[in-house]
């Protein structure tokens, strides 16, 4: 008698189909019929199932429904879990901040850097240096063609024999900086600014930019302040702009 009022699970689609076809027997049939007495929902579904006319259409529509319900049940919790959402926002914000800081050097560099134009100079060297001069010329031709990798290679061949050609050393530094070989570029700019008075402001400016690109802002600031004290009209203005961007000068 107790079992008579015991609640049982609703019918699956398979059970409804099997019952409709008369395929059930024994305990399965008993379970279905027992449940149908109590469950208006399943009884109603069976009535509806008996009225169906297009089995394929039913299956299509049911598949659509199941898909809609399943996809909702999977995706919604993710979007609606506020704690997870807050953590994700925090992670994204932190990542953006780190990315922004990380790229500060590149951003500043891109805003301030201009490739100097080589306008040509007298050939150097003596008769022994004919071969070197040819390399030098090729290096500057490549530089003029913006083939900085080729120019850097040629300068590297040329400079060991011509350690006092500071014009070449300066452009070798530019070629290296274009190729992001900053250590070498810094070395060349240092050498130029200390040894070639004519190129002092230019070499110092590009040295400051090399430090900016290396994210060594303090060093870059000191160099910019050094340029600010000169009277060079172009580089002085550039140095002031850099100091402002670094927050050293308002």
């Amino acid at each position, binding site marked *: *008698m*107790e079992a*008579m*009022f*015991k*609640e049982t699970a*609703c*019918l*699956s*689609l398979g059970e*409804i189909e099997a019952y409709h076809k008369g395929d059930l027997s024994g305990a399965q*049939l*008993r379970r279905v*019929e*027992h449940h*149908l*007495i*109590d*469950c*208006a*929902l*399943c*009884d*109603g*579904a*069976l*009535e*509806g*199932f008996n*009225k*169906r*006319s*297009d089995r394929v*259409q*039913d299956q*299509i*529509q*049911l598949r*659509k*429904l*199941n898909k*809609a*319900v*399943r996809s*909702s*049940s999977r995706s*919604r*919790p993710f979007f*609606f*879990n506020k*704690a*997870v959402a807050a953590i994700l926002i925090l992670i994204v914000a932190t990542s953006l901040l780190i990315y922004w800081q990380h790229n500060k050097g590149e951003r500043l560099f891109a805003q301030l850097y201009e490739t100097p134009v080589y306008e040509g100079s007298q050939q150097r060297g003596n008769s022994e240096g004919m071969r070197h001069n040819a390399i030098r010329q090729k290096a500057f031709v490549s530089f003029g063609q913006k083939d900085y990798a080729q120019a850097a290679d040629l300068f590297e061949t040329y400079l060991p024999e011509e350690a006092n050609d500071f014009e070449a050393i300066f452009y070798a530094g530019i070629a290296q900086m274009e190729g992001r070989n900053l250590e070498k570029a810094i070395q060349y700019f240092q050498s130029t600014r200390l040894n070639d008075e004519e190129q002092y402001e230019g070499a110092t400016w590009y040295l400051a930019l090399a430090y900016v690109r290396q994210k060594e802002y303090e060093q870059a600031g000191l160099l910019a302040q050094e340029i600010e004290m000169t009277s060079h009209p172009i580089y002085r203005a550039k140095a002031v702009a850099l100091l402002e961007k670094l927050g050293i000068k308002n």
Partner: protein
Amino acid sequence: MSLRWLKPKKGFANLSDEQLLTAFQETGEEQYFFALFGRYTHLLYYNCKQYLSDEEDCKDMVMTIIEKAYEQLPNIKIEYFKSWLFSVIRNQCISHIRSYSRTANQTAAWKKHQEVQEAVFPLYEGMEKESQLSSEQIQAALQALEENQRRCIHLFYFENKSYREIMTLTGFSAKEVKSYLQNGKRRLKGSLLAFQQNKP
């Protein structure tokens, strides 16, 4: 600090409808709602099929019912989910039929259906202490049934006969068998509950 939110919320199979419903009402998390309705998609669809002939209409009606349920559920107290769901389906389908002035045949269909189903729920409630009743009280409750109801109840529950076998033995139609069983069980439950309440 509670880290409950870190736990994956899977395995709703062990939760009852009412537990899923409560979880949805308390947390507002849709996963509980869709886990609950995922159990009844096919039943919703074929219940709608009683009223609507077009398959696409049935699917749309199910979606409408789910949307309405989603809006209503957070704000209402439901004791027995299936009973509530059944009435929502019925009301929604009837409202749809009325608004589109469907055929008289369809209207007759739901009226008939309404008569049969209206009194069915909830049959389980309040029967936890049924085992405490004496066999005399159970016999008395059975005797209080109408003859046809008692006959069908006896054949189905005490002789384990199927609907078809009862039809053969009694000559009743399938609908009559079902009706006698449903109404008989309902009356039986009423009598048994009365015995329980009058118990010293």
